[in-house]
């Protein structure tokens, strides 16, 4: 083993730190683009996935089961397949070609929505289904309106709902195939952390790759710390009787 070969890591980390601390513009542009695309896609994915998951999980009927099966299957779709279909939809010859969305951040948001939504839907449905039907009936019997019943169900399912948010966020911020295909990895425009890491690694610019990897890991960690705190916050408050 070539012990001196580990220098590649130390050099890489040293360069990465200086890139991040110096505020090297291209690195921060990539980080901000990633955050912008993924946050927007997650927000829309949650906006669709949580209500749909609530609908699917609150009562099992045959049509709802079919949708749930599709959502569960959707969690396993490879991002490159999503990328392929979104590219075809948005390509010049495709049905949405006239909108000129291919190789834009909007196209990346669309692809990420297709990735995140099934995951959020399936996990939220499972969380809602785990709340006993009788708890809803109990609330109704005490005089709760439909809205109050829903609020109670979501509150009781909150641990699973936060897990759905974490999974949705994780699935899109770390995704590389689809965004590369529909975004084109254009520097300063559609280049995001994952696609940039792939590119810089190929180019041998390990310092840039490590800087972006550190940023990506930090974001994932912060998001998960926040979500875990929110998951357990209710329980802690409950213990205090707040």
């Amino acid at each position: 083993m070539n012990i001196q070969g580990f220098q590649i890591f130390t050099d890489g980390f040293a360069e990465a730190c200086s890139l991040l601390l110096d505020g090297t513009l291209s690195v921060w542009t990539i980080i901000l683009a990633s955050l912008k695309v993924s946050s927007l896609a997650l927000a829309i994915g949650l906006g669709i996935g949580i209500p749909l998951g609530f609908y699917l999980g609150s009562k099992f009927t045959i049509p709802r089961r079919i949708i749930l099966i599709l959502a569960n299957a959707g969690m396993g779709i490879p991002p490159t397949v999503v990328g392929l279909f979104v590219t075809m939809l948005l390509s010049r010859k495709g049905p949405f070609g006239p909108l000129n969305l291919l190789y834009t951040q909007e196209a990346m948001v669309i692809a990420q929505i297709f990735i995140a939504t099934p995951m959020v839907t399936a996990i939220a449905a499972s969380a809602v289904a785990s709340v006993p039907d009788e708890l809803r009936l109990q609330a109704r019997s005490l005089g709760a309106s439909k809205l109050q019943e829903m609020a109670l169900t979501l509150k009781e399912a909150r641990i699973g709902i936060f897990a759905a948010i974490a999974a949705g966020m994780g699935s899109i911020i770390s995704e590389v195939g689809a965004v590369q295909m529909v975004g084109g990895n254009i520097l300063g425009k559609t280049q995001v952390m994952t696609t940039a890491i792939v590119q810089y690694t190929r180019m041998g610019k390990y310092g840039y790759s490590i800087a972006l990897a550190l940023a990506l890991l930090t974001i994932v960690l912060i998001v998960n710390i926040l979500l875990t705190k929110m998951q357990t916050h209710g329980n802690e408050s409950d213990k205090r009787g707040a």
Partner: protein
Amino acid sequence: MPTTNQAINLEIRDVDIELDQFSLTVDSLLLPKGTTTVLLGPSGSGKSTLLNCIGMLKNTSKAKLLIDNKEVSAKEAHGKIVVIFQRPYLMQGSVEQNATYGLKIQGVARQESAKRVKEVLNQVGLENYEKRDVRSLSGGEAQRVALARALAVKPQALLLDEPLASLDPLLKRQIATEFGQILSASSTTALYVTHDFNEALIVADYIAVIIDGEIKAYGEARKTVSVCSSEEVCKFLNIPRAIPGCICAHANSETWIEVEGLGTQIKFLADSKVRAKQKVYFSVRPEDVHVIKEEHAALYDNCVKAQLCSMVSTGEMSQLSFTLEDSSYELFARISYSEAQIIKPELYKTYLIAFNSEAVCVDYLETSCISV
């Protein structure tokens, strides 16, 4: 104890529910104001389905719910008629948060809400439990929280669906007694579903026996579980069919029943409405029937010779089934292990069985006897 709104008469009519291989048909069931009616029946008889229907929670399409003879919608019923399920179904949080939930959704002011929660927690014996996490409660405590949550909204009626089913027998008896006292003190109109005969007798003013989706017997609690005229109800309650007879003598409170084919007359304590030649059905609860020796006959109001026709051990007790001499009528006696050691019961042997006049439960018919 001012924990309820004014008590109401509650009635459900025209229940006709068809589920998979099961149907529930109840023309009418009245829950009299301020009383506890127990819906008693075996598993799968439709008790919970009927309770959910009365609570306007499930399968309510055809049924009519009447509060004080006025039909109400499901929306009007919710919040006034509160259901407590078999499991407490507490929300994540503290005892106080759970007890407050109903008040919060009904928009009760915070100060009034706090006062009421304190009151109901005292009532169910959970004072100083306000801040306890519900996950740290025992089964009995959790069910009390569910009761407190229901009582807090001052319901006009309470529907309890086997609330003690998940508790062990000793705790069940203790909590059933407490529930009975709380229901009685709060004067709430209540329906209490159970398949447990002893639990039913602890809490009931009235009992309705439901079997195979139909109410087969209804009436004052002790009488309903003692005087039984339907084969399937008798089988479920594990008592013999009631014996038909005729009032033959009535002087002050002492009254006698003459039974066709039975050599002796049965003495019982009649109420003031009884009249001579009135047709009656009577029975005696197995625990009130004693197997005695001839020399002890003077200690009892009624002694009858009877043949032992079957013996069943029910754990710590044995149930003896007797056919009364010169007739086909039956009475059961429930005796302890030690009594069995003394009597040494033998099948088809004749014994003297005895019971006092207070133990005779009588169902009076409007008709008169033609001949006895």
